[in-house]
């Protein structure tokens, strides 16, 4: 699948509603946006404004109730969940606020997981290399419980980049960390993203981190503020 016109993500007339206690609640309305390949974009806004919902829809973790999402040229909002899953395995990496490491696996195994799932032959070696790159070569065989928050997030970053994704989604990557650790993790994330040349879409409260991205999208009460069609649109 090729990337059409250098556009990694294209969102058209996207809307999302949920049923909550019998009432329809609109989470997102009339969202149109376009993100170029290699671009880094921060989505900012207040709590409950719809940032995380938008991120989930862009990544194909859920499908919108109206409109469409294209990810790397694929109409993922029209696909079944399994099709989206396979698409994600090949192209997408994730970083979460709460790290989402499997507690029963070691750091090395957590990083190996997506590689194994994509049948990468040198999974162990690659996981080893990337953990070395994030400065955790001494912590390979520790389980998440034995790691600090900053270390856990570095493992999560290593896992996200291990499978060479073309697009990386990050949900409040520094949200659970103290200022200094958050800073270090943010540096690492931005540096790796530049090295790997991936497209980055990040939800954050951290204005400073948002400012380090190529573009900031502000969302308020489910509506994207200003033009979000980006450079390539």
């Amino acid at each position, binding site marked *: 699948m090729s990337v059409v016109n250098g556009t990694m993500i294209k969102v058209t007339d996207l809307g999302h509603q949920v049923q909550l206690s019998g009432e329809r609640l609109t989470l997102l309305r009339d969202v149109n946006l376009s993100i170029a390949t290699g671009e880094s974009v921060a989505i900012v806004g207040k709590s409950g404004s719809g940032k*995380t*919902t938008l*991120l*989930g829809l862009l*990544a*194909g*973790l*859920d499908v919108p109730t109206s409109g469409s999402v294209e990810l790397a040229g694929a109409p993922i909002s029209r696909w079944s*969940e*399994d099709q989206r*899953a*396979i*698409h*994600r*395995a*090949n192209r*997408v990496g*994730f970083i*979460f606020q709460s790290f*989402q490491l*499997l*507690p*029963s*696996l070691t750091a090395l*195994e957590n990083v*190996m*997981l*997506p590689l*194994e*799932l*994509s*049948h990468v032959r040198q999974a162990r070696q690659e996981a080893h290399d990337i953990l070395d790159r994030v400065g955790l070569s001494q912590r390979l065989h520790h*389980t*998440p*419980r034995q790691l600090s928050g900053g270390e856990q997030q570095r493992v999560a970053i290593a896992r996200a980049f291990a499978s060479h994704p073309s697009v990386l989604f990050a*949900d409040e990557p520094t949200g659970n960390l103290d200022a200094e650790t958050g800073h270090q993790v943010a540096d690492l994330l931005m540096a790796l993203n530049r090295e790997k040349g991936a497209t980055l879409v990040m939800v954050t409260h951290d204005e400073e981190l948002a400012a380090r991205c190529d573009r900031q999208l502000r969302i308020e009460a489910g509506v994207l503020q200003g033009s979000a069609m980006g450079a390539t649109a």
Partner: protein
Amino acid sequence: MSGLTTFWWLSRRDWRQRDVRVVLASLVVAVAAVATISLFADHLRQTLLSSATQFLAADRQLSGSRPLPQEFLQEAEERGLESGQIISFSTMLYGSDGQQLVQAKGVSDDYPLAGEIEIQRRPDGPRERVTRPPPPGEIWLNARLLPMLDLSMGDSVEMGEHRLKVTAILVREPDAGFNMAALSPRTLMHISDVEKTGVVQPGSRVRYKQLYSGDEAQLESFHQWLEPQLDESQRWRTVRDGQPAIADALDRAERFLLLGGSLAVLLAAVAVAVASRQYALGQRDTVALLKTLGLPGRTISRFFIARLGLWGLIGTVAGLLLALPAYMALAAVTNRFLDQPVSWSVSPGAIWPALVTALVALFAFAYPPIHRLRRVPAMQVLRSQPGESGSAARLDMLIAVVGIFALLWFYGGEIWLVVALLLALVALLLAFALLSALFMALLRPIRGGGQAWRLALVALYRHRRASLSQMAVFAMTLMLAATLFLMRTALLEDWQAQLPEDAPNHFLINIASDQVDSVESFLGEREISATALYPMVRGRLTHINDEPVREAVSKDEEVNALNRELNLTWLEELPADNRLRAGEWWQEGNSDGVSVEAELFEELGLSLGDELRFRIGGLDLSAEVRNVREVQWDSMRPNFYMAFSPGTLEEFSATWITSFYMEDSDKGVLNDLTRAFPTVSVLELDQFIERIRGIVGQVTTAVEALLVMILISAVLVMAAVVSATLGDRQREGALLRTLGARRQLLVRSTMLEFAALGAIAGLLGVMAAEVAVWSLQYRLFEGRFVWHGSLWLTLPVLSALVLSLFGRWQLGTVLNVSPMLLMRRLEG
């Protein structure tokens, strides 16, 4: 799945998760309990059969009124079975002074194939047990024959045309049993001497028997080969056919083990279901993550099924490894009570139930919630999504109930067991729904405060979902344990009642009508309390409603009572150990009525009001069936199939019969008795009763051991259930401590909370157990139902106590570790 390796290295760390450990532990306990019980049940069956085969002198017996084909014995030999022969008949035995009708028995060299013959070499000599019959030319006699015929050891006696030398007193042969039809003194000789006597002529009344012993499977296949060749006069007998008292004890024991096994299956299923549900709930985040990382739902599904398979394998192997030593220990306990211990063996048939239990427990109970994990939305990684709906849980419950009862059906094949437990379960659920709604309504208005009991009740309400599901499982567990406990108590009481310490162990028969008073005063003078004296007339049933009995009764029914003369009696009042099932007992002045024993009544297909015609000593007598009696055959009191209204049998000459209890040390009285009443026969049943007691004793031990095992499993199940919410409880405890709750307050409120849970569960459990016992008693154990008042108090108290200890245990770490450390640990 991206390959076996991914699966392997994801799963090999599973045991690090507590939920997985709980599922595995439940599974191991399930397999271990079921396997131990079925192995032990199998062992017990072998043990009991081998004790009981002594009563047949072999494992199987074929008998007939004509000589049995020798090919049968040859075939048995070719199949590797042991065999032997018996010919028995009545004949006159002549001594130096007089003659006596005796029951003669000629046996082959191998007799007895099972059990021992007890003899005395001299009248005052010690009792010896031997396993060989007398050699050709010798005869062993019942002790009473020596004074009757004025004989000493070494004297010769004449039977027909043959002389035999008396070499021992025959105290007991294994297959003598307890047969009131055989009234004359018994003798034992070699089979080769029978022909030489010349007394067995065509037309004589003779019983021919062939004995077979060997491997159970070979015996069965031999029987299959034999069966088509048997004619109407030939009968194949197993231990069960031989002795109602033993068959009854065996049946009850087997049913009890079956019940115990079924309850173990149920407990196991509950434990696995609870643990796996908890596990599935805990896996939602992992599944969402795997989806995010690109694993399709169906792959995730396959992955979890493979995991279940792996656990099944591990659980089964570990369970079996635990079951083997447990079984051997139990077998050792029962073997201590045996003369000839049965070596332990593991039959594949006994392993099956455990494997099927593991399989069903995993796939009927663990699979549904785990299978649904594939539907967890990937969005769950970003934001907690709504959990499972109630309808999914209800469906799980339905699948679980169907699974459980399919399993019980497979395990026991006893529809009444399934129905009884189902009834109890329905009662439990109804009462649970009612009581829980009431309880929660009462709790709702209570507000928290500084007191432990307030905190406890508020906590109960706050955790109501967990509290209610735990309460349901506790109640079910307690119901199962209480059911087994009550059944065991009823069983033991029944046995005790059947064979009390002073159960009659001697019978006097052949008492002439003019001796009745003097026999009574003879016994009275020696302070021997005998049962009433019953008159006895021997006669044959010939017609039912003027139709010959052979035509009236279906050919398929093999009614033993039709093949021989029956002991008929008359009764003024219903004996204490009989129970009237239908019809009315006669009033004074009613005549020409007959009361029929319930089983025979059914076998003959009779109805009240039918006319029965009997042939007694060449005369005919008709009587109308007025009522039906249930008779407790193993009460060791004289009992009769046919009892007439007083006066009906007046014109026929009767002999009288009575029974009494006598200690071994008073045996000398018997000699006085035979001297005073030479024509009266004494039937000594003390040895026989001792042996039945021995068997019942073994079964009792087994039953107790089984109960202990089930109770242990029940406690384990409850521990599994409690530990399912361990994480939440500890988190809450840590939080409360952080907020300043004192240690003492936390301990008290938690213990109170669990005690309340336990008390209600105990109440529900005992109620449902009563329902189960009520239906089981009626159908499976044919006993009478009584309420168990004391259990209504003890079970709730006991379960409140045990559960409050569980609560204390749950709190353990919360109290000893700093709240901060604990919170951190629980986050990980």
